[in-house]
């Protein structure tokens, strides 16, 4: 039986000041940056950037948005360790395309190449 709620006590720690260069995939680049610096638990505090093209997931729906120059408007999410202990990023947010259409969803892995840059502030979560 699943608990109705579970808690993880902890506190927020150091801040990671991150930049991802062009053509790197958003989700896997965040995970790789975390792995390279020993960061397994983190939350997104702020992010500004752009994508070549975007693929978002909302439930069963897959939203494909052609670019280039798709603006990431808001980004939220977490990095948590997977079963093997490797950092796994789950990122969601809103984007705007060149026609100023706004879309939202979860960013699909290996489908969201950075266009010009991603500026990202992560804060580590230190479980008690």
């Amino acid at each position, binding site marked *: 039986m699943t608990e109705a709620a579970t808690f993880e006590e902890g506190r*927020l*720690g*150091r*801040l*990671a*000041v*991150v*930049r*991802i*260069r*062009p*053509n*790197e*995939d958003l989700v896997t*680049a965040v995970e*790789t*940056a975390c792995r*390279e*610096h020993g960061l397994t638990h983190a939350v997104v*505090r*702020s*992010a*500004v950037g*752009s994508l*070549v*093209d975007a693929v978002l997931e909302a439930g069963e729906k897959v939203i494909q948005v052609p*670019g*280039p*120059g*798709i*603006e*990431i*408007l*808001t*980004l939220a999410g977490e990095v948590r360790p997977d079963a093997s202990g490797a950092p796994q990023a789950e990122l969601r947010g*809103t*984007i*705007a*395309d*060149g*026609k*100023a259409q*706004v879309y939202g969803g979860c960013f699909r892995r*290996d*489908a*969201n*190449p950075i*266009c*010009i*840059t991603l*500026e990202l*502030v992560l*804060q580590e979560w230190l479980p008690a």
Partner: protein
Amino acid sequence: MRTLVQPGAPLQPRRLLEWAAPASDLRVTLAGGQDLLRGLVAALAAKDVAHAGVQVVAAEIARMAYLTGAEDPSGQRVATYGPPTWLEGPVTLLGANGILGPGPDGDTLLHCHAVVVDAEGRLHGGHLPPGDCLLGAGGAVALVTPLREAAFAASFDSETNYPLFQPTRISI
């Protein structure tokens, strides 16, 4: 996944990360009648904060412009901004993320993207140019995470042919 050929040679490393020391966050309330970005930069400067991550959590906007991406017809860059889209208020901000740091000319720059809803309920969003987001009577609220020991500072990026924020060690 489509990738684009940038005007300059790829730079290494592909992912840059610098550790900043945690500091107390600041919740900032801005009064109406001022520009959102310039008002935030000035308010934080008065608190000696020139490097930060910013979340704008609420804003009532009287008039604003935003920019979205476009292909660069000159071919000098893979993408640029199209002409501004102007919105007359009341416009309600739904979310915005920003990075505060020294810009290419040394002046403090707040690089900010926002998603908003207009008076007819239509969604809009894009890059906010400084000076073009006049707050209405409701003002704005932002949560600011000051960065110490490391932060973003703009410098010319030869790969993209843009001045861009780069993670940098700082002596604060």
